[in-house]
């Protein structure tokens, strides 16, 4: 139901009729007002379409890969922090024969105390101590096919495995393409038995055994035992995050020492308004502006090439980066202080240095502390990126994990960064609340 606003339909008696005033019409939509607007609209649409193609925008790919994305993201969210020693039961099933005659499946039967593999922290493999009862399995592994062709489905049956334990079936090829591939998973039941379907790789090179060595199936179970302990990844990450914090600390400290004097020179209200004062002010501003226009990442590449990969390159690049930002922050904070006390202390007969000590610095300190803490925090975050290109610190480690697709480990690094940033943010809020 429309609401009738009487002030529109009725006029107050005695007031001027609407027709007596100039009429201003509500504007038409912006793109219909002139041909310039229309052309601009067409240009924008054309640019968007071109951009779509140039940037290879591909929403279906994202949809198709969504599962992969979520699984990787899930790995990131599940960082590698604690670990347990693991035991592994690995049963091989040789698949003999070459392409001609076709590969065949033989029954693998192991009826002796087999040596399981114990994985210690960091993936060291130690044979289990002989005679350990838990290491004795009387295992039978069979596959149902008389011959094997690429892409075929096999039914794999196992007996005597560790009960109620997950496992994987792996195809190990020895042919022209030597590699291993997981082709199925299983879970042994309460009696240690299972029966699952597994698909032979759909790749002839991996099924043919060129040197007459048999390909193999492996049924592998892994299970944890013993106490939980912090993973090696965590140790590495903690070491590197500490390095990152110190890189940021050093860079921020150097930057304070250098940018503080510059910022006083770059504060309009402290520089005398004569030729020399203006020249120094302009020069200081220019130095800050130029150094700010170079990204820390580019600086890091240059410094890493100069002084070698490592934390020092990171410190140097972050220092330059922080000088520019701090210099700007500081000088603007100084410019924004209350000029009244400056005037009052000047009027007492104090000189410029005394005015700065007693009128400028006390007013500047809260912002100085706030900005400096913020810069440290920002340097920590920037140093992760700088680490990507060889600036040391956590970024150096993170990029390696990502390149090796070790997303659990990468997750540990990312979580460590997040935790440090949160702690620093909290701490700086506390400190600022105290000094303001």
């Amino acid at each position, binding site marked *: 139901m429309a609401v009738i606003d009487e002030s529109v339909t009725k006029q107050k008696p005695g007031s001027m009729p609407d027709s007596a005033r100039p009429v201003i019409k509500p504007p038409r939509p912006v793109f219909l007002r002139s041909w310039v607007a229309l052309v601009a609209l067409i240009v924008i649409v054309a640019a968007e379409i071109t951009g779509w193609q140039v940037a290879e925008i591909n929403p279906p790919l994202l949809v198709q890969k969504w599962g992969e994305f979520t699984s990787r993201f899930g790995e990131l969210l599940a960082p590698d922090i604690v670990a347990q020693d693991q035991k592994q039961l690995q049963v091989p099933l040789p698949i003999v024969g070459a392409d001609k005659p076709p590969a065949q499946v033989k029954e693998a039967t192991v009826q002796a105390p087999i040596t399981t593999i114990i994985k210690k922290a960091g993936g060291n493999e130690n044979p289990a101590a002989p005679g350990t009862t838990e290491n004795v399995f009387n295992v039978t592994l069979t596959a149902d096919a008389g011959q094997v062709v690429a892409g075929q489905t096999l039914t794999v049956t196992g007996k005597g495995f560790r009960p109620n334990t997950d496992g994987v079936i792996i195809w190990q090829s020895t042919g022209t393409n030597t590699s291993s591939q997981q082709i199925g998973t299983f879970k042994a039941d309460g009696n240690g038995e299972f029966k699952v379907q597994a698909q032979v790789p759909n790749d002839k090179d991996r099924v043919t055994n060129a040197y007459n060595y048999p390909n193999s199936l492996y049924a592998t179970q892994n299970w944890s035992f013993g106490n939980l302990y912090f993973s090696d990844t965590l140790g590495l990450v903690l070491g590197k995050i500490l390095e990152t914090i110190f890189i940021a600390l050093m860079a921020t400290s150097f930057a304070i020492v250098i940018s503080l004097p510059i910022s006083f020179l770059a504060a309009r209200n402290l520089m005398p308004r004569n030729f020399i004062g203006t020249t120094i002010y302009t020069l200081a501003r220019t130095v800050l502006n130029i150094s700010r226009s170079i990204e820390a990442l580019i600086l890091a590449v240059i410094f890493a090439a100069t002084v070698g990969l490592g934390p020092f390159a990171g410190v140097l690049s972050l220092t330059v980066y922080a000088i520019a930002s701090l210099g700007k922050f500081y000088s603007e904070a100084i410019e924004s202080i209350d000029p009244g*006390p400056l*005037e*009052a202390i000047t*009027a*007492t*007969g104090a000189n410029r240095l*005394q005015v700065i000590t*007693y009128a400028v610095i*006390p007013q500047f300190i*809260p912002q100085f502390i706030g900005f400096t803490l913020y810069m440290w925090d920002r340097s920590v975050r920037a140093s992760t990126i700088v680490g990507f290109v060889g600036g040391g610190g956590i970024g150096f480690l993170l990029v390696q994990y990502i390149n090796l697709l070790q997303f659990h480990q990468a997750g540990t690094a990312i979580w460590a960064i997040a935790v440090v940033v949160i702690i620093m943010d909290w701490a700086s809020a506390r400190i600022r609340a105290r000094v303001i």
Partner: protein
Amino acid sequence: MIKIENLSKTYEDGTKALHNINLTVPDGQFLVIIGLSGSGKSTLLRCINGLIKPTSGQVLVDGENITTASTAQLRKIRLKIGMIFQQFNLVRRSSVMTNVLTGRLGYKSSMSSLFHRFNQEDYTLAMRNLERVGIVQKATARADQLSGGQQQRVGIARALMQNPRYMLADEPVASLDPATSHSVMKYLEQINKEDGITVLCNLHFLSLARRYATRVIALRNDGEGGEIVFDGGALEIDERKFREIYGEDAVEVEIGPRDGKVAPDRTLAPL
């Protein structure tokens, strides 16, 4: 004695603030400068201690020319001219004590003051001056914890630290309520009478001028810069003079009498 000769000031943006001011202030006077906002009162005070450089003319303080003094000489002359401000201009984050001590900086070298070195004498003097303005118990408080009137008294104590012969007061009570205004003005009157400090005070309140001034000058700016349109005793300002200073449309309004004893507190209000 302060002697101002042919003083004119035009700001960089073209604003004409003062035009050909001639004024002699003998020692011991309580001079109140009145006039509308923009009539050049603040500029005049700041020309006296060299915070603003005049465009032409000169200011002589005890015969020393402010306008031609070197930076070092200027600081020396400023030592004997205290100043207080409408917004008090204390360093709000510093303690009352530190604020008062800054009045002593003119006697210190850069190096000693850089490391906050004031000696025991300075502290004793600061306490003495805080006691004079009645806030000795607030010495360790932060300046921004004080009320407006208390802050202005700290401002007076800071100026007294200079051991000044002159006191410039730029609208010292414009941010204060009438009762507090009187208390601050009384401290100015006290240092004028007891210490013989010459006071030059800008005021909005004509009633305060009548009450405290030994001499009143009025500035008026008709666009060519502020000029002196009245110079005489406070009680000489009658209705006609009043309109001359503040313009035809101005009226004096009365607010309630203070403490029920003083004459009606007549305050200027624009129409």
